[in-house]
C-alpha cells in the first residue's frame, strides 16, 4: 500500500527528496572545507558541481510513476476543458459514437448469447448431434435418432465423446389431484443430468440408480411447470403424482434455463430389456435422439470419422435401418438449433461493424478538422518542451474521453435496442435456454470497442497533427497551407469510406426489402387470409380408430361451421406449404415411377373450399366419399402432368408404397383419381411444388389432426369459440396450436427476412445519416478554408453560379467516388447475404440503382448548404478575412 500513501503524500515525498539532495550538497561542502577550501568558495564549488537543485529534482520526479499518472490526470483535465469549449462537436461526436457502439454492442449480445454461448450446459459448445446421411439423397432427410442397441454401441464404442445421452419426447398426462393435465415430457437416459452438469434448483436430478431394475419410479420437473402449475411450492418435491397413469415421485425441480429437449417433465429411461419407456405402444422400438459432448480439442470431422466406423459395423446387424450408401455427419447442437438464422446474425454483425467504422471515420474526420484549427496551440506546446509522445498522448486522451462518453451512452442505447431486437426476433430458431442481455462478456466487448474506437479515431489525427516540422506553424496564421492540403486529402478519404460503407449497408437492406416483397407476393395456391388453423392432440384412448375420429370430427366441424362468422371448416392432417407426407407411388398399368415421390394429405370434403383451391377437372371429394372412406383421390395439376402428361388422369388408379410399410394404413390399396385441383405450394414458399394427392381423412385413424376454418371476421377472434366447441365434444382433446393461417405463415417464412430488414435497415439509416454529416462537415470546412480564394475569384469577376458549381463539383466528386467504391465492395459482400435473399439477384441492378440515387440526392443536399454559403461570400470581407 506504499504507493497509495506516496500518491497522497506528495508533499512528504517532495520534502524527503529535498532533504536527500541537500544532504548531498552539504556533504560535498563539508568535504571541500575539510580539504582546506574556505567555506564560501566550498559552497560555490559544490553548487557548481551539483548543477541546479531544481533541475535534478525535476529529473528525479520524471522517473517516478506518480508523475506519469499525474500528468495523465492533467491530460484528462485538459481534455475536458478543451472539449467543453466545443460543445457542438462533442455532442455530435458522442452521439455518433454512441449509435455506433450501441448498435455494435446490441448486435454482439445477440451473437454471443445465441451463437457463441447459448446453452447453459457443461461444454455447451461441444454438444454434438450425430446424423446418418444417405449419400443418394440430396435433401436434408438425415436420420438423427437411434434404436437403443445402436445407442448403447455408439456410447460405449466411440473414442471422441466424453459422454453420450439419448432421449425421446412424448406427451405426458399427469394428475395433480385437481384433474388430468397434459404437458410435454421426455424419457432421458439416466446419465443426462450429470451430462448437462446443471445443479437442480430443488431436490436432485435423475441419477444412474433411477434406471436400475426395481428402482422406485421418479421424475423431475422444469421451472416453468413448477411455477405455472404448482405456484413455486417447494413442498411439492417428494410428493407422488400420477404420471401417464403410473404413480411417480417428484425428486427435483430444475432452474429456469435448464430446458433440455424442451420438455417439462423428465422421466428416467433405464436401458435394460423391458425397462419402462424402452418400447413404444404396440411394442415398436423407440428411437433415441442422441447428443454427445466432444472431448476438448476434438473436431467435428474427427468425430464423424470415428462414428462412421461404428455405424458401418451396426449396419451389418441392422441392414434395414441403414441406406445402401451412407456416411455419418456431425453438427454442433448450437448450429443444429439455429440453422440458417446464424448466417443472418453474422451478416448483421458484419453490417454493424461497418456502421461502427462509419461512426469512427466521422469522428476521425471531425477530430482532424479540430486538429487543424489547433495547430498553433500544438506548436506552442511543442516549443515549450512537450515531446511528440506527450502530444500524441494528449490527443489520444481527448479521443478516449469522447469514446468513453460514447460507450456509456452506447450501452444505454444497447439496452433499449436489445429489447426492441428481442421483440422482433423470430422465436422459431432461438434455443429455449438462450438468455440475451448485457452480461459481463458483452460489457467487456463494449469496453474493448471503446479502446478500439479511441485508437481508430484518435491515432490518425494525432499522428497527422504532430507530423513534420511543428515550428513554422507558429509563425503562420494558424492555417498552414501544406498542412491543410494533407489533412484535406485524409478527410476526403474518410468521407469516401463513409459513403462507400453506407452504400454497402443500403444495398444489403435494399436486397432484403426486395426479398420481403417477393415473399409477400408468392402465390401459395390457396387463400391464407381470414383462415384459422387449430391443431388437435388426441390423448390415448380418445378417437383412436378411423371411425371414432370421423364421429368426433364430424361433430366438431358441424359445430364450428355453425358458429357466427365462420364460412366453412375442414379437417386436414398437414398444413401447406411446409408439411407433407411423402410416398412413392405405383400407378396401375404404368411402371417407371419408382424414383418419383408425391406428397399426400388426408382431408375432409370441405378442404378445397375452405382453402380456396380451385377445381380444374373432374370432381372434388364428396361427403359420401369421406364418410364411407372410399378409395378415391384428388390430385394436383403437377401430379397430373408428371404422371399422366397429356393423358386423362381421371379414373386412373395408383397405390402409396409407404402404406404397405405402416401397420395402421391400408395395405396394397389402390386409389382412383376423381379430380384435379390447382397446385398448392408444398415445399415451402421458395420452392415449386411437387405432385400432391388428397385422400379422405377416414382412410386411417393414425396421427393427430388439424382443423382449418374459413372466417368472415378476423380469425383470431374466433379462437375461444372454436376451442369451446371442441371441448364440448371431447374435453380431453387438447389444442396444440390455434392461430390464424397468416401468422403461421409469418412465423415460418416472413419473420426472419423482416427481422433482417428492420435491423439492417436501421443500421443503414444511421450509417447514411452519419455519412451525410461527414459529407456536410467536410464541405463546410473546405468552404471556410477557401473563403479567401473564393473572395479573390469573385473580386476578379467570377459568377455566383460558377462558384456554386465549383463547390458542388468538389463535394459530389467525393460522393461519386464513395458510390463507385461502395458498389465494388457491395458486389463482393452481398453474396454473404445470399442465403437470406430470395426472389432477387444479389447484384440486382434496380436495388443498386436506387441506392446510388438516394446517396447522390442526399449527398447533393449536404453539399448545397456549404456551397450556398460560398456564393454569399463578400469579396471585401473575404480578402480581409486573413
Amino acid at each position, binding site marked *: 500500500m506504499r504507493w497509495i500513501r506516496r500518491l497522497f503524500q506528495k508533499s512528504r515525498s517532495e520534502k524527503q527528496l529535498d532533504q536527500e539532495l541537500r*544532504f*548531498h550538497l552539504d556533504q*560535498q561542502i563539508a568535504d571541500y572545507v575539510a580539504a582546506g577550501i574556505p567555506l564560501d568558495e566550498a559552497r560555490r564549488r559544490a553548487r557548481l558541481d551539483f548543477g541546479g537543485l531544481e533541475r535534478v529534482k525535476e*529529473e528525479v520526479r*520524471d522517473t517516478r510513476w506518480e508523475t506519469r499518472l499525474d500528468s495523465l490526470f492533467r491530460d484528462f483535465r485538459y481534455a475536458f476543458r478543451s472539449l467543453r469549449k466545443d460543445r457542438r462537436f462533442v455532442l455530435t461526436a458522442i452521439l455518433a459514437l454512441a449509435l455506433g457502439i450501441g448498435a455494435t454492442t446490441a448486435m454482439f449480445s445477440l451473437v454471443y448469447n445465441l451463437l457463441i454461448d447459448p446453452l447453459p450446459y457443461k461444454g455447451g459448445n461441444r454438444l454434438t448431434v450425430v446424423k446418418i446421411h444417405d449419400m443418394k439423397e440430396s435433401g436434408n432427410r438425415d436420420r438423427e435418432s437411434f434404436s437403443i442397441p445402436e445407442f448403447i454401441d455408439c456410447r460405449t464404442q466411440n473414442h471422441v465423446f466424453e459422454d453420450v445421452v439419448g432421449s425421446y419426447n412424448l406427451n405426458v398426462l399427469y394428475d395433480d389431484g385437481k384433474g388430468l393435465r397434459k404437458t410435454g415430457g421426455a424419457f432421458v437416459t439416466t446419465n443426462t443430468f450429470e451430462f448437462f452438469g446443471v445443479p437442480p434448483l430443488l431436490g436432485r436430478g435423475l441419477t444412474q440408480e433411477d434406471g436400475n431394475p426395481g428402482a422406485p419410479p421418479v421424475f423431475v420437473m422444469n421451472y416453468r411447470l413448477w411455477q405455472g402449475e404448482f405456484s413455486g411450492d417447494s413442498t411439492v418435491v417428494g410428493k407422488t403424482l400420477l404420471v401417464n397413469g403410473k404413480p411417480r415421485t417428484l425428486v427435483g425441480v430444475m432452474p429456469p434455463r435448464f430446458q433440455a429437449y424442451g420438455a417439462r417433465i423428465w422421466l428416467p429411461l433405464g436401458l435394460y430389456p423391458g425397462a419402462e419407456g424402452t418400447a413404444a405402444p404396440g411394442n415398436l422400438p423407440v428411437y433415441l435422439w442422441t447428443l454427445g459432448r466432444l472431448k476438448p480439442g476434438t473436431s467435428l470431422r474427427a468425430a464423424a470419422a470415428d462414428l462412421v466406423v461404428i455405424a458401418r459395423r451396426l449396419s451389418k446387424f441392422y441392414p434395414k435401418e441403414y441406406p445402401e450408401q451412407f456416411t455419418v455427419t456431425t453438427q454442433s447442437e448450437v448450429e443444429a438449433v439455429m440453422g440458417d438464422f446464424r448466417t443472418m446474425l453474422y451478416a448483421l454483425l458484419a453490417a454493424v461493424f461497418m456502421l461502427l467504422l462509419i461512426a469512427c471515420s466521422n469522428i476521425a474526420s471531425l477530430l482532424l478538422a479540430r486538429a487543424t484549427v489547433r495547430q498553433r496551440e500544438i506548436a506552442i506546446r511543442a516549443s515549450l518542451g512537450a515531446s511528440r509522445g506527450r502530444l500524441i498522448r494528449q490527443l489520444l486522451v481527448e479521443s478516449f474521453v469522447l469514446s468513453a462518453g460514447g460507450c456509456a451512452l452506447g450501452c444505454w442505447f444497447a439496452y433499449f435496442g436489445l429489447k426492441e431486437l428481442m421483440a422482433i426476433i423470430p422465436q422459431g430458431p432461438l434455443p429455449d435456454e438462450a438468455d440475451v442481455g448485457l452480461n459481463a462478456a458483452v460489457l467487456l466487448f463494449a469496453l474493448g470497442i471503446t479502446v478500439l474506437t479511441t485508437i481508430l479515431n484518435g491515432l490518425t489525427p494525432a499522428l497527422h497533427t504532430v507530423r513534420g516540422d511543428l515550428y513554422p506553424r507558429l509563425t503562420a496564421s494558424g492555417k498552414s497551407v501544406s498542412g491543410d492540403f494533407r489533412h484535406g486529402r485524409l478527410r476526403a478519404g474518410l468521407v469516401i469510406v463513409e459513403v462507400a460503407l453506407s452504400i454497402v449497408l443500403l444495398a444489403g437492406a435494399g436486397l432484403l426489402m426486395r426479398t420481403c416483397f417477393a415473399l409477400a407476393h408468392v402465390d401459395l395456391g390457396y387463400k391464407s387470409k381470414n383462415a384459422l388453423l387449430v391443431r388437435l392432440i388426441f390423448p390415448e384412448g380418445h378417437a383412436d380408430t378411423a371411425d371414432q375420429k370421423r364421429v368426433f370430427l364430424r361433430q366438431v366441424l358441424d359445430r364450428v361451421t355453425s358458429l357466427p362468422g365462420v364460412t366453412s371448416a375442414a379437417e386436414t392432417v398437414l398444413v401447406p406449404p411446409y408439411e407433407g407426407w411423402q410416398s412413392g407411388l405405383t400407378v396401375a398399368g404404368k411402371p417407371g415411377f419408382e424414383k418419383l415421390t408425391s406428397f399426400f394429405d388426408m382431408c375432409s370434403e370441405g378442404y378445397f373450399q375452405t382453402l380456396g383451391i380451385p377445381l380444374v377437372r373432374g370432381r372434388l371429394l364428396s361427403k359420401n366419399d369421406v364418410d364411407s372412406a372410399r378409395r378415391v383421390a384428388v390430385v394436383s395439376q403437377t401430379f397430373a402432368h408428371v404422371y399422366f402428361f397429356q393423358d386423362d388422369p381421371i379414373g386412373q388408379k395408383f397405390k402409396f408404397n409407404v402404406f404397405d410399410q405402416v401397420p395402421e394404413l391400408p395395405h396394397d390399396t389402390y386409389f382412383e383419381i376423381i379430380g384435379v385441383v390447382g397446385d398448392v405450394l408444398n415445399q415451402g414458399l421458395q420452392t415449386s411444388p411437387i405432385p400432391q394427392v388428397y385422400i379422405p381423412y377416414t382412410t386411417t385413424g393414425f396421427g393427430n389432426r388439424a382443423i382449418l376454418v374459413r372466417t368472415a371476421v378476423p380469425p383470431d377472434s374466433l379462437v375461444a369459440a372454436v376451442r369451446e366447441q371442441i371441448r364440448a365434444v371431447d374435453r380431453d382433446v387438447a389444442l396444440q396450436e390455434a392461430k390464424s393461417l397468416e401468422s403461421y405463415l409469418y412465423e415460418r417464412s416472413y419473420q426472419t427476412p423482416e427481422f433482417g430488414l428492420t435491423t439492417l435497415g436501421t443500421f443503414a439509416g444511421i450509417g447514411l445519416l452519419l455519412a451525410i454529416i461527414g459529407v456536410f462537415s467536410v464541405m463546410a470546412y473546405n468552404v471556410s478554408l477557401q473563403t479567401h480564394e473564393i473572395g479573390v475569384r469573385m473580386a476578379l469577376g467570377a459568377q455566383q453560379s460558377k462558384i456554386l458549381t465549383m463547390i458542388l463539383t468538389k463535394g459530389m466528386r467525393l460522393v461519386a467516388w464513395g458510390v463507385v467504391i461502395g458498389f465494388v465492395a457491395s458486389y463482393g459482400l452481398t453474396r454473404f447475404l445470399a442465403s437470406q435473399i430470395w426472389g432477387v439477384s444479389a447484384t440486382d441492378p434496380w436495388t443498386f440503382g436506387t441506392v446510388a440515387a438516394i446517396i447522390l440526392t442526399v449527398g447533393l443536399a449536404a453539399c448545397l448548404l456549404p456551397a450556398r454559403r460560398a456564393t454569399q461570400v463578400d469579396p471585401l470581407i473575404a480578402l480581409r478575412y486573413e
Partner: protein
Amino acid sequence: MGEAKIELLRGTLDMLILKVVALCPSHGYAIAQRLQQISKDFFQVHQGSLYPALHRLEDRGWLQAEWKNSETGREAKFYALTKKGRRQMDAEVVNWERLCDAVGQVLRAPEEES
C-alpha cells in the same frame, strides 16, 4: 549525443550503482564518492544522473531505501540492495563480461596484410 550512447551509459550506471550498494548500504553522496574512488576518478557521476537512477532503481524494487543517521550524525537516505536487485546485478555482470569478451575478441583479431 546519440540516443544509443545515453542508453548504454544509463544501463552501465545502473549496474555500477548496484555493485557499489552491494558492497555496503550507503547514501547517494557516498555512492558517488565511492564510484569515483574505485574507478580512480574515471567516472565523474553527475547528480543529475545519479539521483534519477537511484529513484528509478528503488521504484523497480532493486534497491531499498531507509532513513538512517550518517557518520556525521545527520539523517540521510541509505540505499541497500534487495534480493531482486542482486539477481539483476548478477545477470547484468554476466552480460557485461560477455560483451567485454566479445568486443575484446573482435578488437584483437589480427589485421590482414593487404
